[in-house]
């Protein structure tokens, strides 16, 4: 076991977004952004070293969580997991995200941890990140010269590595507005409920007259990043979702994932249960995943 004494660093407390961007430009890679801190402070007590920590604590305008039927959902950088759980709009229109937030970690951590922090962590196990991957969304990344949008589809590059440049701050995430017939759900397996997921899955299906028009199927803990399952999505797209089809989908899942042995589970077990979990999350979306 390593030391749990937090290493030395300078905490910087900017009071506006431009001030944050200036600090990021100055310190580049020798700097970490602190919002909820539930991952960062643990990392700083173990093997992560950085000389500067830029806190968003005093920065106004980043805690907006708003929904508009035409614009969709906007999640600011300081929106916590608890904010998501409390949002009736998220519960109604984005069931997958609400379900992931509801079971996320513990009440204390939900009160502190942020949704965007979960995305920035680029963990292959992130529950809220996974639900958002299935729902789709664009991150607004801002630096001193402007803002660019990056789709979640292009954001996670490898374990812990994202498309964010060191001088950029993720300002918000925009999730598209709910569409007619859209159904979504999230499911996971853990040893105890406050444990990190050993495997998790989320789907967003667009249904019309009992036929799946299109599907986004995302899975965690089965590769170096969260992944989508394109072959499974292709099987579901244009098809009526029958028990037979779900059987075929379930078999296909194992062919699309590359799980490893680690402290939470084994590759073998993950491969065995992955198909079952995907089948389960599709059924949950179809029965309880209405977006209205």
């Amino acid at each position, binding site marked *: 076991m390593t030391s*749990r004494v*937090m*290493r*030395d*660093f*300078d*905490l*910087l*407390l900017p009071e506006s977004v431009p001030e944050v961007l200036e600090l990021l430009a100055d310190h580049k890679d020798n700097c970490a952004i*602190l919002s909820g*801190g*539930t991952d960062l*402070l*643990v990392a*700083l*007590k173990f093997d992560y070293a950085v000389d500067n*920590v830029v*806190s968003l*604590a005093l920065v106004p305008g980043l805690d907006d969580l708003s929904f508009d039927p035409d614009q969709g959902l906007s999640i600011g950088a300081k929106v916590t997991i608890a904010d998501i759980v409390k949002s009736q709009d998220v519960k109604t229109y984005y069931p997958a995200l609400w379900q992931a937030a509801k079971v996320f*970690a*513990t*009440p*204390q*951590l939900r*009160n*502190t941890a942020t949704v965007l922090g979960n995305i920035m962590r680029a963990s292959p196990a992130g529950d809220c990140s996974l639900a958002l991957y299935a729902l789709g969304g664009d991150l607004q990344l801002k630096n001193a010269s402007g803002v660019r949008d990056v789709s979640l589809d292009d954001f996670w590059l490898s374990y812990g590595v994202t498309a964010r440049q060191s001088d950029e701050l993720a300002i918000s995430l925009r999730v598209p507005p709910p569409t007619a017939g859209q159904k979504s759900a999230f499911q996971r397996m853990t040893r105890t*409920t*406050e444990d990190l997921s050993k495997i998790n899955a989320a789907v967003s299906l667009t249904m019309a007259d009992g036929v799946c028009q299109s599907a986004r199927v995302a899975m965690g803990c089965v590769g170096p990043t969260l992944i989508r399952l394109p072959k499974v999505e292709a099987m579901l797209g244009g098809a009526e979702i029958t028990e037979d089809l779900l059987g075929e989908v379930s078999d296909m899942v194992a062919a699309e994932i590359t799980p490893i042995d680690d402290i939470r589970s084994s590759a073998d077990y993950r491969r065995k249960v992955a198909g079952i979990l995907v089948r389960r999350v599709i059924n949950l979306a179809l029965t309880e995943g209405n977006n209205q």
Partner: protein
Amino acid sequence: MKKHAITLTVNGEERDLVVPSNRTLLDALREDLGYTDTKYGCGTGECGACTVLVDGTTSINGCLTLAATMDGASITTAAGLAQDGNLHPVQQAFIDNDAIQCGYCTPGMVLKVVSLLDENPTPTENEIRSGLEGSICRCTGYTKIVEAVQDASNRMAGVGE
């Protein structure tokens, strides 16, 4: 390392202090201000021994909060729950239901229950058990704690008085 002058209101009392950047809220409370009712357990946000309430009823882990980011915050520790010499109903329910064994988790656990009952004054057993996630007790097996929460819920609603 930078130092930061901050003011915390702890259990209603304003306290000024100067903390280095890496000082956790837990260490500031225990080492700098003497609120040793807040406990150090795992140091990584899993056990809940360091739980405190911010601005009334929001539970957080003191071990995963930097003191310097909490300037101006109002913090409640377990020692701040009693009013006018009377224990909080949650504290009294823990005593009356024998929900304390070694007592190390108790301050954090009691604060967590205050937070839980504020959000949901009449929780089911399942809601109590999921609400208690993040506060680990290695003695009781939780049964007595769940009973204490149910008792506290009844007392605070005025049932049986």
